[in-house]
């Protein structure tokens, strides 16, 4: 059973044009910057936003096909949604929230309530059944929202930033539990997130969505070892440069600098450099490093016990050094210095 979306939607400022398929039992993460259209894709799949062109099928059933004049409204789609801020009905108890779906689908009250109770047991908040949403924590609200979405036994589960509203402490444990529930769930899941860690923990496959278009798909390993956009490179903290390769020399597209790689080929390429492969020098170094550029410091970011130095000049780069190195070399914003990278540290692949 396959859920497929071929979806075109014009929202004035955003033009969405994507193709997406999710198999039953699979979790696909839609990863992208704010405003890329991720939530709109979810709304279209849920039936809250009709598409302009294309075709949506859920479990091989057509639910939206403008050309054929077919549109199945939200309440008739086999879809469960966990919304970003959970949106638990404030006037209903936790149990009534979860029983709402079964009740709306025609199951008698008593049966709906006992089903809801079983779902609360499964997500581990059975003791909160009688509480109002206002009285429970963020993690508990997330579990309630998940139970409410799953209680209708949907064939497609949509999660919109399911962990974004949680603080760092609860986030890890809720993420672990969510992962367990997603493994048990036999339908298709589409997860919207802008957090690579959530995608890593929860998804089988990643779809990168930028400005309404899919820029890359694959497993997390595939996407991160061969990023195709600066968004993904930033997400995993790598330097990504675009240029044209002739032998082992790459001429950069938007910058004067050149890059030397170990393995050469011809044509348009992307070059990946880990920030800790970049060395900084006050005076022009003489050594084996084939890449040597004159750079200016534009800023610093603290990342754990490392400092990321943002550089601009012949080649825009981020270098990762220790705080001790920053102090010893007395690095400051606006300083000019030399950056070197060994040719073997540059990973180049066709763009």
């Amino acid at each position: 059973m396959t859920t497929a979306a071929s979806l075109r939607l014009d929202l004035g400022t955003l033009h969405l044009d994507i193709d997406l398929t999710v198999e039953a039992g699979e979790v696909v993460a839609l990863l992208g910057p704010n405003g890329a259209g991720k939530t709109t894709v979810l709304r279209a799949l849920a039936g809250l936003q009709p598409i302009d062109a294309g075709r949506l099928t859920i479990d091989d059933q057509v639910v939206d096909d403008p050309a054929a004049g077919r549109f199945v409204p939200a309440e008739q789609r086999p879809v469960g949604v966990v919304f970003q801020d959970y949106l638990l009905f404030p006037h209903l108890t936790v149990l009534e929230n979860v029983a709402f779906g079964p009740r709306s689908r025609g199951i008698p009250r008593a049966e709906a309530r006992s089903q809801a109770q079983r779902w609360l047991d499964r997500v581990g908040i059975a003791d909160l059944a009688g509480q109002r949403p206002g009285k429970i924590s963020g993690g508990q609200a997330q579990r309630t929202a998940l139970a409410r979405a799953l209680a209708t036994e949907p064939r497609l589960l949509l999660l919109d930033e399911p962990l974004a509203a949680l603080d760092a402490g609860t986030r890890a444990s809720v993420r672990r539990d969510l992962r367990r529930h997603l493994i048990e769930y036999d339908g298709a899941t589409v997860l919207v997130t802008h957090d690579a860690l959530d995608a890593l923990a929860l998804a089988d496959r990643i779809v990168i969505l930028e400005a309404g278009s899919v820029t890359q798909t694959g497993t997390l390993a595939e996407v991160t070892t061969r990023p195709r956009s600066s968004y993904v490179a930033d997400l995993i903290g790598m330097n990504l440069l675009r240029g044209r390769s002739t032998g082992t020399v790459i001429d950069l597209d938007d910058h004067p600098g050149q890059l030397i790689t170990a393995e050469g080929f011809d044509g348009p390429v992307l070059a990946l450099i880990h920030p800790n492969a970049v060395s900084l020098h006050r005076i022009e170094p003489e050594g084996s490093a084939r890449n040597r550029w004159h750079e200016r410091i534009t800023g610093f970011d603290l990342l754990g016990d490392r400092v990321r130095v943002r550089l601009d000049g012949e080649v825009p780069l981020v270098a990762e050094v220790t705080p001790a190195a920053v102090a010893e070399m007395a690095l400051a914003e606006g300083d000019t210095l030399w950056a070197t990278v060994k040719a073997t540290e540059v990973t180049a692949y066709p763009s």
Partner: protein
Amino acid sequence: MTRARRRPPLLVVAVAAVTVAFFALPLIGLFKRASWATLVDDLTTTESLTALRLSLVCSLSATALSVLFGLPLAWVLARLRFPGRPLVRALVLLPLVLPPVVGGVALLAAFSRRGIVGEHLYDWFGIQLTFTTAGAVLAETFVALPFFVITVEAALRSMNTRYEDVAATLGASRWTVFRRVTLPMIGPSVVAGAVLAWARALGEFGATITFAGNIIGKTQTLPLAVYLALESNPDVAVAMSLVLLAVSLVVIVSLRDRWLERS
């Protein structure tokens, strides 16, 4: 950094005090004027009781009609986009600012036996609204309905409609969404709107006397009885005024969370 508190602007405070007195003095006068010893007797005269009972029946009927017809109208105004919506809103809110007596004249033009609608009501069904209790209810509904619509429409607009989206994804039909999500979430505003409409209906004078007349037991509601009693039996008029004042105070207190700031 601390700073000496500035002296309050005396002239402004003085004018404000005069204004407060302007509101307070009539109430004090009413209390002083009341003959408390005969209050119960004044209120239990036949004409008082008749007017009280009629007022209650008419105002509650008008409130029920306001809720019944106002709720769908408020929903349409808040949720549907259609050409001419601002015009419709203006039309609905007009009775808020229209002099009630003009409302009464307009109602006559439409629903009297020679009115554009009333003519047919009489010819075809034998229904006459003028000079009947039904006419009094109609006049009160005309002035009360906008209060309900404006309150509920505002609540529908400020409500987070994503809750309705959630309900739809859970399989709820439009009607179920309204009944189990929308209505409970705007519940307090529906109650507030109904209370406002009721208070307005209870106090209605101009439209009622113009359209429905002043017939004891049929269309003579409390405000009309007060006006008439002022000539013949001022004590009764004051006593009935106190009843209406008490109702107004209850309304203000019951809506205090909306209107009175809590310090």
